[in-house]
């Protein structure tokens, strides 16, 4: 369009073309006017060829043609036409009209050309502007496209982000849910933990109180401590109270603030309320309850209380209370815990009461038994003593008869001998029984005993342990032991007497005493070469009234007495057949080495 406009309207009129057109038009018009049309008509058409300049716009051509036509019209009008009088006025006006016609047409064409040119110029300008605009529009379109592209991309990213966000939100929600679940679990765990802690406190208190003997006071104090521990922070005092007449008496209490007065008016106490109603009750702030007495502690009054009745055998015996110096909202948990503590207190009080009763009963029975045993012992002593008197008489009279037997036959003397021996045996039986009872009954005081000296003393005082009756060898030096001298003398003399007694007739007994020092004990060995002990009899060796043989004199108490006495001294005694055919007894006692006990004096 622009190119075409330029081609058609924008070119500069060429001078040569203008001259050609001028000559052609002038020639054509001259030919027509001067040679073809000899009339005066069509004078107005002189201006028409000027219209060609609408096609070929050249002012020089326009006005050249106009000038040429004016000349032509002049020529024709005044020179060519024969009948024309140049002086004629009409002729002149006619020509003038022709000239005006040419000038008007020429001016009109000029104006049109000018307008057209202006239009063209304007058009061209517009075209250029348009072009520019189009370019800009294109650019804009491109940019727009780019922007759109970017926008699309952004939108895509936005979408992705939105998706991610949604996902995140979902996860967040889930996490939140899990968090809540965890929090719930944690809370549950905390509750469980708290409960476990409480249970532990309870159990510890139970164990502690179960192990407490003596006064119920200690037990109640332990329960108060437990109640205090269970009630948690913000609780300063726990107490067990009891109704005594018109007063409320504090049986036991625990806490940082001790309640000052031991006795309160019962009727105006919270304990009275719970005891009467048989249920737990709490007061948030005692200031709101002027009808209730305020428990005092040094320097401060209690402001809040919780109390529950204590039951023993379904009977309310008192109240369990906890107090706070500040107003306190009592929780259900605290209610439950206090009730639990009160239940346990009741049980423990009951158990304690039962135990006290039992202990009292056991004590009474034990005392009665002791009395009975004492009586029996006294009885047995009296009897045995009284039995010894006739025995003494039998032995004595028979002995006198035997000493002065001039009127008696030999066999009668033998009978007397039997009487004396039997009486003597019975007396030994009685003394041994008495000794055994004594060993069972009495506690032996222990001390350091020089065994070597003790055994040498025994051998010296018993002729049947000395040559020519017997031979007793002591191997090495016997170490000292922790024992009772009288008891140990009894043990050793019985063992040595047995060793020397149970031999074949006519045999001189040979006894060997030796000792082994262990860490904290000493083991003595008493070995003989006598008749020995049959394996069948071994289990009964240390039993009362068991005798290995009737061929030998004895009461069957000796070894039982040794065992009992030895055990009383914290020792052991036993039989262990050695390589020889005789018997071998051992006795183990605590060593005196390192013992700080004083030497044991003779108690008799």
């Amino acid at each position, binding site marked *: 369009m622009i190119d075409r406009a330029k081609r058609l309207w924008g070119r500069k009129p060429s001078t040569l073309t203008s001259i050609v057109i001028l000559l052609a038009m002038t020639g054509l018009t001259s030919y027509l006017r001067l040679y073809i049309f000899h009339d005066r008509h069509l004078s107005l058409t002189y201006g028409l060829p000027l219209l060609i300049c609408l096609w070929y716009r050249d002012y020089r051509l326009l006005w050249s043609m106009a000038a040429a036509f004016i000349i032509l019209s002049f020529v024709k009008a005044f020179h060519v036409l024969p009948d024309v009088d140049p002086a004629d006025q009409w002729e002149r006006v006619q020509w003038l009209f022709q000239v005006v016609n040419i000038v008007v047409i020429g001016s009109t064409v000029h104006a049109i050309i000018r307008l057209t040119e202006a239009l063209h110029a304007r058009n061209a300008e517009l075209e250029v502007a348009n072009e520019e605009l189009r370019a800009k529009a294109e650019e804009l379109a491109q940019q727009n496209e780019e922007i759109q592209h970017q926008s699309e991309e952004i939108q895509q990213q936005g979408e992705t982000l939105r998706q991610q966000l949604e996902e995140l939100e979902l996860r967040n929600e889930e996490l939140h849910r899990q968090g809540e679940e965890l929090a719930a679990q944690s809370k549950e765990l905390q509750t469980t933990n708290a409960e476990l802690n409480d249970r532990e406190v309870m159990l510890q208190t139970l164990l502690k109180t179960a192990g407490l003997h003596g006064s119920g006071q200690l037990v109640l104090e332990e329960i108060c401590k437990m109640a205090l521990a269970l009630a948690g922070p913000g609780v300063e005092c726990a107490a067990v109270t009891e109704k005594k007449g018109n007063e409320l008496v504090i049986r036991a209490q625990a806490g940082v603030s001790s309640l000052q007065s031991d006795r309160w008016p019962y009727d105006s106490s919270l304990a009275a309320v719970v005891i009467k109603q048989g249920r737990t009750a709490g007061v948030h702030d005692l200031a709101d309850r002027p009808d209730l007495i305020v428990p005092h502690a040094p320097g401060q009054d209690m402001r809040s209380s919780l109390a529950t009745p204590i039951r023993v055998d379904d009977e309310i015996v008192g109240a369990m209370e906890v107090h706070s110096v500040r107003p306190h909202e009592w929780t259900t948990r605290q209610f439950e815990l206090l009730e639990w503590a009160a239940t346990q207190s009741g049980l423990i009080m009951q158990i304690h009461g039962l135990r006290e009763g039992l202990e009292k009963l056991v004590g009474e029975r034990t005392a009665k038994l002791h009395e009975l045993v004492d009586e029996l012992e006294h009885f047995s*002593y*009296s009897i045995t*003593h*009284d039995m*010894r*008197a*006739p*025995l*003494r*008489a039998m*032995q*004595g*009279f028979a*002995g*006198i008869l035997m*000493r002065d037997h001039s009127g008696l036959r030999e066999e009668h003397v033998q009978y007397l001998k039997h009487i*004396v021996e039997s*009486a*003597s045996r019975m*007396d030994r039986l009685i*003394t041994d029984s*008495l000794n055994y009872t*004594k060993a069972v009954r*009495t506690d032996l005081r222990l001390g350091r005993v020089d065994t070597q000296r003790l055994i040498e003393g025994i051998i010296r*005082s018993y002729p049947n342990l000395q040559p020519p009756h017997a031979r007793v060898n002591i191997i090495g030096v016997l170490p000292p032991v922790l024992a009772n001298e009288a008891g140990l003398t009894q043990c050793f003399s019985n063992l040595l007497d047995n060793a020397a007694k149970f031999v074949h007739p006519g045999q001189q007994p040979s006894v060997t005493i030796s000792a082994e020092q262990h860490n904290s004990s000493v083991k003595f060995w008493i070995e003989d070469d006598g008749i020995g002990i049959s394996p069948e009899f071994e289990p009964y060796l240390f039993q009362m009234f068991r005798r290995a043989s009737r061929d030998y004199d004895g009461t069957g108490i000796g070894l039982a007495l040794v065992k009992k006495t030895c055990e009383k001294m914290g020792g052991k005694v036993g039989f262990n057949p050695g390589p020889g055919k005789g018997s071998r007894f051992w006795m183990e006692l605590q060593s005196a080495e390192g013992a700080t006990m004083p030497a044991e004096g003779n*108690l*008799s």
Partner: protein
Amino acid sequence: MTQHVLLYVEDEKGDVFFMRHAFQHIGASIVLQITTTGPEAIAYLSGTGTYADRMMHPLPTVLLLDINLPGCSGFDVLKWLRERPEFKSLPVIMFSSSTRPEDVQKARELGATDYREKPASGLDFSEVAEELLRKWMNEHPAASILPAPATSPSGRRAK
């Protein structure tokens, strides 16, 4: 010239016989006075009732006291005796078949001079008689001339 007087408080006739026999046997010429119950012993010592005559019932130089007696026990007699200043220095020998440490302890606490277990055989009373003579009657300034103990010393009482 005064003779030694031994007051033997004993309810057991056999024991009384053996003691008398023992002194005869060892040939000691002492006055052996017998009471058979606790109250009788107290009456003898305080010289009341039938015991008012001190010629017949002279005050003893030694008292041999059984524990198990009718009426009141030997301990009661001992207690009564030791509460009286005139008998503070009288040798009192408890003579019993009891070997109970409690009895020995009680005798000691109540002020017995000695404690002697009765022998198992009545024949062995002579040992006790010898010991009594030697320990409590020979040394006395008021002692009469008595035969020396015939037998060798039998040693201290063996438990």
